[in-house]
């Protein structure tokens, strides 16, 4: 069945974007007037990075999830495959936004986000000099472009073969996908960590944590599952996806539940080890967060952990559209706050607060994201026809 974007959805995305841009403009004006506009550049750069990364992460997480299904030759997901693809289809737009943000930061010599991009700061800092082999503008951009190119090429291939499978059938494409999916996971295993170090961990340039990449990745994955389950529920409610039954929803709900645990587990692992060892160069990271972001930081952890745990624990809750959407909306915002603190704590520090600019840019990119995903849904039939496991998926019952 062909999907058509409803008029209301179109209006919603436009309103989101217009209101968002308006708020951003107000935010810029407010910040420019405050303290001689001292923080304006940093705050704008930080916000660009937060929202472009957060939504890029959803697209990337979706691509990863698709590759995971390919590599494991899963059957159940065949009926929701087009939803996964539509969300992964945000990736090219996400890449453009990421490039713009990173370009802006690079041209502003780090904009107080990436201190290692600022030659003056590096000159007076021995630790940054030691890291400058890895953390320098040239190598940073080489890595960034390699990540983007890899993700984009895999995405193009997956999409092309998915549409081709609908036309041709057979199992050749399935086995190609299987190999490419596994290959993607190999690249992703390395890149998900290193890209998190490059884009986010290097904001706190003196600090490092080997676990950081997984932590960022887990947050990304959890957000992705929330988006996938809510998009599926939305389509289901509009009368599309006739082959998606309660069991598919239940499975997506379980993924949401499990990935929020994965995220909490990694958050806690990182926190507890650093708290226990109490080494000055490691604890500085948490000192900032405890001092300047106390309520927000621990509140964010609590909602991202406790909400899905308590509300999604029972079997019935994972099949209930209302509960899933409610929990999803809450933890979606929770994970945005997580990204916000990741980026703002190391750059703005105590001067950071959620104001017009933060809300504005979030709404703008959210509107764009919804628009792109809905447009992607119209570009291909919502039900795949020749997936080898389609029959299994239609009869999926747990």
């Amino acid at each position, binding site marked *: 069945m062909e999907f058509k974007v409803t008029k209301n959805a179109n209006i919603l995305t436009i309103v989101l974007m217009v209101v968002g841009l308006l708020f951003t403009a107000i935010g810029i004006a407010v910040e420019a007037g405050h303290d001689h506009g001292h923080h304006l550049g940093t705050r704008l750069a930080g916000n660009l990075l937060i929202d472009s990364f957060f939504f890029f992460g959803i697209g990337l997480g979706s691509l990863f999830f698709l590759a995971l299904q390919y590599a494991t030759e899963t059957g159940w997901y065949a009926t929701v495959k087009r939803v996964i693809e539509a969300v992964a289809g945000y990736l090219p737009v996400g890449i453009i936004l990421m490039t713009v943000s990173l370009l802006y930061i690079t041209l502003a010599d780090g904009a107080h986000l990436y201190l290692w991009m600022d030659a003056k700061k590096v000159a007076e800092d021995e630790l940054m000099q030691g890291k400058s082999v890895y953390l320098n503008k040239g190598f940073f951009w080489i890595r960034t472009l390699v990540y983007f190119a890899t993700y984009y090429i895999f995405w193009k291939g997956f999409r092309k073969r998915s549409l081709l499978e609908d036309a041709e059938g057979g199992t050749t494409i399935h086995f190609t996908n299987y190999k490419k999916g596994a290959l993607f996971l190999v690249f992703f295993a390395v890149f998900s960590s290193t890209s998190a170090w490059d884009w986010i961990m290097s904001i706190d340039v003196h600090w490092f944590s080997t676990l950081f990449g997984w932590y960022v990745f887990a947050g990304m994955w959890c957000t992705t599952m929330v988006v996938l389950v809510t998009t599926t529920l939305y389509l289901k409610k509009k009368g599309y996806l006739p082959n998606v039954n309660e069991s598919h929803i239940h499975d997506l709900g379980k993924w949401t539940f499990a990935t929020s645990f994965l995220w909490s587990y990694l958050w*806690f692992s990182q*926190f*507890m080890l650093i*708290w*226990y*060892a*109490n080494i000055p160069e490691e604890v500085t990271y948490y000192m900032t967060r405890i001092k300047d972001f106390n309520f927000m930081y621990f509140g964010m952890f609590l909602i991202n952990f406790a909400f899905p745990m308590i509300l999604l*624990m029972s*079997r019935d809750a994972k099949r209930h559209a209302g509960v899933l959407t409610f929990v999803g909306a809450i933890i979606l915002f929770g994970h945005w706050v997580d990204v916000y603190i990741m980026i703002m704590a190391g750059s703005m520090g105590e001067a950071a607060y959620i104001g017009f600019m933060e809300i504005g840019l979030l709404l703008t990119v959210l509107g764009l994201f919804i628009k792109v995903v809905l447009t992607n849904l119209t570009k291909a039939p919502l039900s795949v026809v020749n997936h080898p496991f389609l029959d299994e998926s239609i009869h999926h*019952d747990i």
Partner: protein
Amino acid sequence: MADKVIYAMYDDDDVLKDGAKKLVAKGVKVSEVFSPFPIHGIDPIIGIKNTRLGIMAFLYAITGTMLATIAMRYFMIEDWPMNVGGKPNNTYLQNMLAFIPVTFEFTVMCAAHGMALTYFLKNKTLPGLPAQNPDPRTTDDRFVMELRLSENSNFTVEELNELLKTTGYVELDQKEVN
């Protein structure tokens, strides 16, 4: 009360499932199915209620959490205050983070052991107890469906046998039980 039990043996789980569907549609009550592995989708066909093992798991887990908390508080704070890595040790709350891994592990252990024991007890399959299955081959490659005459008072043994014949069993057995 004396009761007659009919055992129909199959060599394929799908055949048994289709047979059970057919019988239930005719109003026969299938009281039990014995199988070497769980047969997907048989529960709703023969009318088995959803398991409440999950609720028990939750209760066992909560018990584990409580036991771990009480015990660690007593060991590490009250009885013999421990100072590990210079952490403040006068209250449990200040050391909370250090206790979370143990709490978690103990919770999982209690839930897992509790569930396993409950499962064995409920099915009367604790080690040493007599076997519950009518035929040792149901632990290998055979599937047995059990019909009780007392639950199928609308049918005679002959009628049941006649119905069973259409389901493609490989062996049929009858027993008098108390």
